């Protein structure tokens, strides 16, 4: 069964491939999520703007060569973003501390001890940031961006199996820190 929104996106992508001046609609659709993702990785507004500009400029230039693999167009944009972020990390070498990041709001039912839970999650994301880059990227795309494994695979230029392995390794490594993650109340 065809997905109307996917059909709509295919049409937009095809138009933009034929005429780059149609790219604006794709930009409007995807700017927010790409910018949010980039910001979550670089954690600094100016840097996020630089990287996001680079992502969309590269995407525009590459539009004529874009191949529809059946995955969402966004997966391709994430792929460019992942690479751009990696390039930036390579050039900067160091990551910034996470102290003020993930001041999280919590979805779902109220917790018995919200403060403790928030603290726990802040710490788990701090641990995520300490993971190797590729594990970290896979976890963010899966758990923050709610992407499908196959789309993450496109974004990261890997096979779905490799993405699963990265997620497994990442989560397993976090479990190794399980003791520090357990709420104090338990």
């Amino acid at each position: 069964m065809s997905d109307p929104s996917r059909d709509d996106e295919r049409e937009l992508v095809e138009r933009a491939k034929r005429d780059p001046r149609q790219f604006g609609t794709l930009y409007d659709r995807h700017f927010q999520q790409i910018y949010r993702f980039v910001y979550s990785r670089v954690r600094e507004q100016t840097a996020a703007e630089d990287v996001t500009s680079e992502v969309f400029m590269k995407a525009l230039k590459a539009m004529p060569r874009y191949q529809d693999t059946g995955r969402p167009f966004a997966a391709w944009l994430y792929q460019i973003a992942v690479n751009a972020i990696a390039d930036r990390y390579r050039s900067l070498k160091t990551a910034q501390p996470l102290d003020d990041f993930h001041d999280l709001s919590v979805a779902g039912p109220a917790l018995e001890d919200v403060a403790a839970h928030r603290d726990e999650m802040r710490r788990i994301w701090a641990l995520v940031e300490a993971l190797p880059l590729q594990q970290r990227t896979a976890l963010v795309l899966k758990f923050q961006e709610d992407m499908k494994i196959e789309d993450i695979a496109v974004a990261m230029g890997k096979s779905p199996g490799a993405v699963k392995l990265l997620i497994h390794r990442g989560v397993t490594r976090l479990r190794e820190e399980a003791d520090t993650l357990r709420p104090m109340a338990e």
Partner: protein
Amino acid sequence: MNSYHDPELEDVLQDDELRRIASMLSSARAPEAPLDEAYRTGLRRQLMNEAWAMTEGRQSWWRRAFAPPGLAWAGAAAGLVLIMSVVIYTSLQPGAGVQQIVVQSPVDGDRSVALAQPILVKFNQPMDHPSTEAAVQIMPATNVTFGWNQNTLAVQPAGGTLAPNTQYHVTIGPGAKTATGKPLSSPQTITFVTTAPPTPSVTPTPRPTPSTALGEKQLAGLAGAHGLVSQWSSDSSSIYYVDGHGALNVIPAKDGGVTVIAPDGASSPAVSPTGDRLAYLRNGKVEILTFASGKTDELSVTPTPTLVDWGKDRIVWAAADGVYTQADDGSSHQLAPLPTTGTVAVVSFSPDGSHASYSQDQNLFVLDLASGKSTQLGQAGATFLGWSPSGSALIYATSDNDVVANLQGVTQSTLPAGEATWSTQDAILIGGDTDILQTRPDGTNLGRISGGTFHFPTWAPNGTTFAFVRGGSLWVATAPPLPPEPTVLDEASVVVDTFMKARLAGTADQASALLDANGKAAYAGGGLSLLISGDPSFSRYYILSSEVTGVDPDTARFVVRLVLSHGKTDVSDQEEALTLVRDATSKQFAIDQATAGAHRDLGKGAEVVSVDIQNDTVKVTFDSDLDPTTVTDGVTILDAKGKRLDANASYANRIVMLTGLNLKDGDSYRLVVLTTIRDVSGQNVDAEYDLDFFGPTAKRHGNHQDSVTLTPTPAPSPSPSPASPSPTS
């Protein structure tokens, strides 16, 4: 804690502890990333510029724009007080030092740029023309041509004018090179905002100096006539007049001699409403000359007529005891009696034949022929001067002034004393011994249009030419037109402007003073705020559309756009629909209703910046040049049931004209601009735009005299001149 279930990860998250960690990871929401909307729209603009350059096969400049900066910005060039300037330092070659290229525009930063002018871009050194022209990018999308005058580039919109109410960004990309081949290393953008579209302005017409002649021309002597008993032909080409010997003559206003119609004993000439016959009195009888045949019929009517005229399709005449008309069988039929005491004389019939004015001794009355009711005009000594073209008002003279009154005798305005005549164009001439004045019936636009003697001025039906008496002769002259009367929209828009400027200035009390109780409630509710704060900030407004939607009381509806900016860049706008109603007592407009309308981000395809609504035509002005092939089905009007109206759509110079409409007064309609509309850069309108409006009220308004209809008659029928006996003699 909820356990994490994701079919995709079932095989990798095999125990509860792993799923617990996954659940924690997925339940955390990242905080909203701080976003500068100006960055977002600016990046979009850069992308579109690049896309355009890709399409045109032009040299890409974005790489340089995003390359490590080899430039710095400097401030405005010193010494140019009124000219905003931008200074770019560019490193031309490694190790070659720094050379400064200065790009200036007199419109940069200007927020009220007139529409009919090129965008001038000045360079401080000779530029290579082809590369510089190729590097020019304009948002909104605009077709342009280029011209050079030394180092100044004139960017001229191909349509002749800039779009109204629009912020332009004109970027000179780094592809621009100097004449020596050195490139500008960074794009530079000139930003400005254009004014509203031109409207028929109510500007005073320069008055001729008193010495300026009005083309005065002497036609014929009056043989000692006292006063002027005359009548213009319905086509304003000739004047019928009675001279001092009682002869009824006709003379062309331009060239030609006198023709005698009746050699003696004539009075009271009156051209029929259809212009084909002339009635007059002679020797106590009514004579009717039919122009086509040249034949004169004589009507023996009783009682003896003293004044004759036309009421619609038949003769009316005054006699000593009443006003009469001719019944179908030819007999006399009294319409209304006259008083039986004192000396009574009818002096004039109204143009529509429904009223007469008569004197009784020293007093002046208006008589309703249908009811027989008389109403006194002014005090004793008042003399009749003339009727308004429709006959719904009149002018009489007192010892001090001329007075405009309605048919109930209520004074509408007071004018300077003199001999007055009221034109089909609602201009009143007031003549006398030394000069002639012109004014609106309400006394506005009063001015002296010439010096000299102008007795008994009498407008021709065309409202341009008038006859008068000077030195015992009949003359004609041409009066300069009065400036257009301020319309309901003119008056209401002043209130809207004052209201919006007060809001821009942050003075809520001044803005609130223009709201009536309903209006205050609208802004006190949750949907609308008088003051708009925050970033992006309220930076400017413009009136998108305006229309008269009702009379009695006058009602006007405006759709206003409030533009929000971040820094110098307009990023979004929001609409408010304001309904203004004229207060019955103060006669001033107040804002009675206000509703919030669409909120749109800018820079996402062509934007509607002006909508002009007439009953048969709706004119929609865009900020961008459009792809004409997308226009026909992209701009439509729906009725209240959502049915598309039949209309002919045409497009030129950013304007879509929908013609052949028949919008009904007061009905609801919706203008719809679909996303199929595409500008010349290939970008579609981002989201459908809807504008709700009402069928405009076609009725013309008298702004200043509510009970007096100052409507000119569509086909001017000759109205009696100030009739005999002469009002001032």
